[in-house]
């Protein structure tokens, strides 16, 4: 099926609609469409199959420049701070990360720094039990920075490999809450050199263009080292990730594919792009 001397209008409209439906956003979708038309002019493909193969390679390459594994401090505690807006899957992602690390023989300690939301500590505590790790927690309403301080101290004393810090969901528009996050980061750094070594922003795959603003805002408070895209087992495609990478140079490190502790995978750009067009 050749496309003749110019790209079929229907094919292009169809492709653009796919990109937009995947939450790529109008500006990013337009730039992708321009590069597709450019590649066609340069005869880089000749038929619809070729177009899609070219496109998938192009998109995957946009996500692959900065793929890095999880930080790992030699002979010391690696501190992972998990942040994000309300309900994105932070606590559950921590359970999954814990399961992944313990299955690789690492010793993990959890810090219950969401001292605000109803039963947040209980939720993480249950996950600690299920994954077989210890947890540092205070009573509800305690200062999250105080919990972080105690947890960092305990992590060093108990010689754990990873300290994972759970924080309360917070909208990036709430300045006092973003300040609180900075304070947690500072306290961790005060107790453990160069901590936090990983700052992972958990983004809900169903989120639209606001994800770009979230990434920018959180990055300003606590420099991000990675993203976790949760709930990719749904029908949302998280195409907003392309817009994010234009603004914040932070790689996706993991994806969440369900509600159980096993439902976490390391990010693979080609697999992610393939799933976008399924």
């Amino acid at each position, binding site marked *: 099926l050749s496309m003749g001397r110019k790209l079929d209008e229907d094919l292009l409209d169809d492709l653009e609609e796919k990109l937009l439906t995947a939450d790529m956003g109008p500006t990013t979708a337009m730039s992708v469409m321009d590069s597709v038309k450019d590649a066609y002019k340069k005869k880089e493909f000749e038929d619809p199959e070729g177009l899609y193969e070219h496109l998938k390679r192009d998109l995957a390459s946009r996500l692959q420049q900065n793929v890095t594994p999880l930080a790992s401090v030699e002979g010391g505690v690696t501190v992972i701070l998990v942040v994000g807006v*309300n309900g994105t*899957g932070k606590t559950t992602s921590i359970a999954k990360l814990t399961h992944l690390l313990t299955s690789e023989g690492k010793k993990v300690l959890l810090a219950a720094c969401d001292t605000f939301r109803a039963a947040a500590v209980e939720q993480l*505590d249950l996950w600690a039990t299920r994954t077989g790790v210890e947890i540092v927690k205070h009573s509800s309403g305690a200062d999250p920075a105080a919990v972080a301080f105690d947890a960092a101290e305990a992590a060093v004393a108990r010689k754990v490999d990873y300290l994972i810090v759970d924080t309360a969901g917070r909208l990036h*528009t709430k300045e006092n809450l973003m300040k609180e996050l900075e304070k947690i980061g500072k306290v961790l750094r005060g107790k453990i050199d160069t901590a936090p070594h990983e700052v992972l922003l958990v983004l809900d795959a*169903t989120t639209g263009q*606001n994800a770009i603003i979230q990434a920018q805002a959180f990055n300003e408070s606590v420099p991000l080292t990675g993203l976790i895209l949760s709930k990719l087992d749904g029908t*949302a495609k998280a195409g907003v990730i392309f817009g994010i990478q234009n603004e914040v140079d932070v790689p996706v490190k993991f994806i969440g594919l369900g509600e159980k502790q096993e439902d976490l995978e390391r990010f693979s750009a080609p697999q992610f792009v393939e799933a976008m067009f399924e």
Partner: protein
Amino acid sequence: SLTKNLQGAFSFFRKRGHLTEDNIKEGMREVRKALLEADVNIKVVKDFIKKVTERAIGEDTLKSVRPEQQIVKIVQDELEELMGPVGGYINFSGGSPTVIMMAGLQGSGKTTTCAKMCKYLVKKGKKPFLVAADLQRPAAIDQLEVLGKDLGIPVYSERDGGRAPKVCQRGVKEAQRLGMDVVILDTAGRLHVDEALMEELQEIRDKTKPQETFLVCDAMTGQDAVQSAREFNSRLELSGVILTKLDGDARGGAALSIKTVTGKPIKFVGVGEKTSDFDEFHPDRMASRILG
């Protein structure tokens, strides 16, 4: 802003004389861009643009001194009309107690909204009762019990491995026995593509016959809003929608997508994490927010 972008587009056209119908269509590309940036679903955007283009041409914006202002007004009016009416009403008739079921995707704000609804109902002189029907999320029952305790609202729960539909049925019976007049069912978050869990939701509805079935949806949801809303609606016949986390800066285009695709009214909005952060839905405010 949209007005500025339209102005820019039209000043370019105006340089060559009067605006034409084609110029209006070109200007509509700015409206399309604004709506897509606001997360309105692309198919909904396409239909919407057709409608407002016809209206703009029909209302003679071509001859207007400030066509961009007239077009923005048409867009605003059309958005308001499509997302209306003003919310805030609950169907209290036909059941004793009135049963309200909260459903939606994971993390959308259902449990918190149950508590907010209780506080709202108490203000309206009702005696609400909570049923903890999320039997799968760790500490979900604890979460509802803490919220209930803070508000002085009784919470019905079962911790011995029952099934959600039965728990809900027994919860409603308990509310009847205690003479409570509204029961709110907090269900587990679930994917609209999870066949078994969507059937469970239908079973809860069949066993409790709710007067109100709300889809609780996060205001920052993108294009996927139509997929999930359509499926929840076709399974449950929703009575309304509650949009949460509007205290953020998401434009909230999902509101238009959901209303268009389900036809169901958006009745309430969540505007914070406190139980008092709960308002009736106002289509005019939502329209301005979407336009940015």
